[in-house]
């Protein structure tokens, strides 16, 4: 059994999707997988449609950032041809007709497969995202934890 690590920095629907396909594929090949979510990638871990009341009081700017970020994985924008969400809807329609798994289905599968997901606490503070707003079953840590995991890994991707 080998190990794979992925950094999910992007909050683009297509990039996040690619990251989860690779992660799920590796887990299906008996690899231990760790995904580290930082900055815009944190949006992928948000509970659907802003569920979860934040525990800490947010500053005005933190409120602004967290308010402007996508509220759930299915609200992430695609990196090209998004056209204010219209392109995303069209792409999702094609994906559905081709039986391609959505990002939320890929996340659920990742959790079933025991993929370790770590949220970067520093970027959570910057973007005003609290633990309560993120899905259950994830871990919270920083760069040293990620580097420790990456040291033991034979594939490391920055998405």
């Amino acid at each position, binding site marked *: 059994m080998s190990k794979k690590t992925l950094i999910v920095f992007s909050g683009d629907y297509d990039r996040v999707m690619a990251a989860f*396909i690779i992660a*799920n*594929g590796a*887990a*299906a*090949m*008996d690899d231990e997988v760790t995904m580290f979510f930082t900055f815009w990638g944190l949006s992928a871990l948000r509970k659907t449609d802003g569920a979860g009341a934040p525990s800490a009081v947010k500053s005005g700017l933190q409120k602004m950032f967290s308010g402007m970020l996508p509220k759930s994985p299915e609200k992430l924008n695609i990196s090209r041809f998004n056209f204010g969400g219209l392109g995303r809807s069209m792409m999702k329609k094609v994906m559905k007709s*081709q*039986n*391609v*798994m959505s990002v939320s289905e890929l996340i659920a*599968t990742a959790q079933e497969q025991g993929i370790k997901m770590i949220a970067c606490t520093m970027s959570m503070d910057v973007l005003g995202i609290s633990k309560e707003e993120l899905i259950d079953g994830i871990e919270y840590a920083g760069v040293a934890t990620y580097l420790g995991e990456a040291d033991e890994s034979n594939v490391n991707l920055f998405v």
Partner: protein
Amino acid sequence: MSASVEELKAIESPAVVDARGVSCPGPILAAKKQISGVVVGNVMEILATDSGTLKDIPAWCRKMGHDFLGSFEEAGAIHLFLRKAK
């Protein structure tokens, strides 16, 4: 890939995984899920429509240590066979 289509078709009652209509990474997820229920030494057949499985299932077998026996296409479906080795 060693077995001929005739040999593959002659395999009796393999465990069947139906991954038809499912896109990547669906077929390997389905294979991973169902291989645990197969007895070591027995054959598992995967039905798929995603052409990527022709490369992906052999790669999955190499990684997992199972013997890939071969594949054939029939009536719009790809039939892939492997023997659980451990």
